[in-house]
């Protein structure tokens, strides 16, 4: 059985950055990708707006992917394409079984794993949409792949549920391709995607956005025929006589992404119910030694630039783990957020290991125009700064000071204190 030092699972933006960072002339590093091309979801995100942080220029998704692929070119990394992982277990090392056409079914051994498996879309069932179940109801990301890679439209008269960025981007995309986009409904009183996308994807094409609305009926026996939306009151119950019906042949759902770590169900590591991903330390290592998770497989990002940065750190950490850290005991300090914070990552910091170059990522629960941010351990304030325009749609980042010193057995607290306007 062949043994690798590090195996990276998934060759999208996360996997490409992780592989490049983990590569080493003296290590056997393997990258597994299920598709025929590297770059993952970036390949179907043909719109621009990527790379402003990482490459200081505005790129389309495929261009961003191309850069990451080129950066990996001269690295000592073996890549297997069209390869599906189908079993994984931990003995002394990790045992990975994969399948591809050239080799058949193969089991390999790995000392460390980096999971960069991305996310999946929340489905109709998960949000309990009422009505019949005709064809024509599908996830926005699936419709995006059909259109931008496979080359066909999923309908001519479209409605979109959810104002997440994928939904907004698809509204414009379908309109440009000649479809009639009748509207976008959002259950919350505010759009969940970036303002820039609301303006450039909806306002530009006079596509109506129905805030505080959701779908209350779906009709059609074989093919989707119509959908009905209703306005919601503040308790999220439909308001009587507010129904509007639209005749459509496709309904696209953009109602959230969930970290895809189902492949690792056979491994036992701590999960975080707020992110639906794993609990990690500052090196993106899970509670299972040698298992690293980064990118959307860890928590959902709104910018790919941070996926790359995070995965790069996971790659470097996996390499350091192989070289010297294996078996070294950790001393974990918890990182907690207050009531205005939805989640903070990493959830733990290992104070027996380096705390250099650590960035906390967090999302707030509501929109706050002005706030104070504090990072505290007990009575000691580590960071105090002003923050403006915190919104749930945008992930916030806070870098830890270089010379940070932490006590053990006491949690670190991230506090958002809202300043009333």
């Amino acid at each position, binding site marked *: 059985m062949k043994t690798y030092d590090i195996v990276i699972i998934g060759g999208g933006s996360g996997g490409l950055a992780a592989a490049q960072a983990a590569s080493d002339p003296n290590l056997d590093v393997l990258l597994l990708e299920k598709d025929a091309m590297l770059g993952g979801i970036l390949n179907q995100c*043909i719109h621009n707006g990527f790379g402003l942080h990482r490459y200081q220029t505005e790129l389309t998704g495929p*261009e961003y992917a*191309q850069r990451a692929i080129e950066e990996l070119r001269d690295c000592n990394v073996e890549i297997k394409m069209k390869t599906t992982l189908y079993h994984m277990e931990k003995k002394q090392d990790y045992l990975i079984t994969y399948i591809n056409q050239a080799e058949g079914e193969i089991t390999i051994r790995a000392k460390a794993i980096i999971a960069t498996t991305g996310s999946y879309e929340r489905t109709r069932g998960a949000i309990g949409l009422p009505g019949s179940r005709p064809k024509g109801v599908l996830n926005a990301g699936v419709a995006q792949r059909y259109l*931008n890679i496979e080359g066909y439209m999923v309908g001519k008269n479209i409605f979109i549920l959810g104002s997440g960025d994928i939904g907004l981007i698809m509204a414009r995309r379908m309109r440009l*391709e000649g479809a009639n986009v009748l509207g976008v409904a959002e259950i919350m009183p505010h759009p969940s995607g970036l303002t*820039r996308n*609301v303006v450039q994807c909806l*306002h*530009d094409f006079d596509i109506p956005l129905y805030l505080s609305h959701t779908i209350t009926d779906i009709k059609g026996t074989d093919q989707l025929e119509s959908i009905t939306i209703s306005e919601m009151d503040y308790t999220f119950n439909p308001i009587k006589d507010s129904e509007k019906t639209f005749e459509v042949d496709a309904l696209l759902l953009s109602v959230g992404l969930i970290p895809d770590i189902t492949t690792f169900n056979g491994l036992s590591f701590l999960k975080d119910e707020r992110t639906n991903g794993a609990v990690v330390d500052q090196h993106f290592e899970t509670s299972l030694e040698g298992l690293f998770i980064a990118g959307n497989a860890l928590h959902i990002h709104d910018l790919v630039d941070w996926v790359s940065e995070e995965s790069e750190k996971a790659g470097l950490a996996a390499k350091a783990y192989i070289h010297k850290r294996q078996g070294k005991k950790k001393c974990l300090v918890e990182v907690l957020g207050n009531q205005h914070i939805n989640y903070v990552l990493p959830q733990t910091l290992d104070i027996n290991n380096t705390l250099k170059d650590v960035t906390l990522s967090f999302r707030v629960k509501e929109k706050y125009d002005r706030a104070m941010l504090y990072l505290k351990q007990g009575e000691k304030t580590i960071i105090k700064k002003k923050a403006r325009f915190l*919104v749930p749609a945008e992930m916030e980042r806070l870098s830890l000071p270089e010379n940070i010193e932490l006590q053990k057995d006491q949690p670190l607290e991230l506090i958002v204190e809202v300043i009333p306007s």
Partner: protein
Amino acid sequence: MKKEMICIVCPVGCHLEIDDDLKVTGNQCKRGEVYAKEEVTNPTRVLTTTVAIKSDITRRLSVKSEKPIPKEKLFEAMAILNRVWKEAPVDLHEIIVENIADTKVNILSTRRISK
């Protein structure tokens, strides 16, 4: 007549109003004024779409306009691009259509497709 818009220059998202004499209100900084004037006098957008390609791995080649083009030319450009048929290999940033819809802007591929 006043026109309303949301500024997208930064995350603040000011609600702007601009009148026929190009007087801008509602902006909190100078950049909002520039944005509003540009939006009413010459709104432009980068067009990103796909064209058909004969290849082993994909049926569509992603493309973009090299620079923003006037907003009212977007659908004319789409109509031209829907008639384009490429064959692999295509290099990154290869010119797919020159001077699309008389905008003096070229359409470039945004991917390399080798086979």
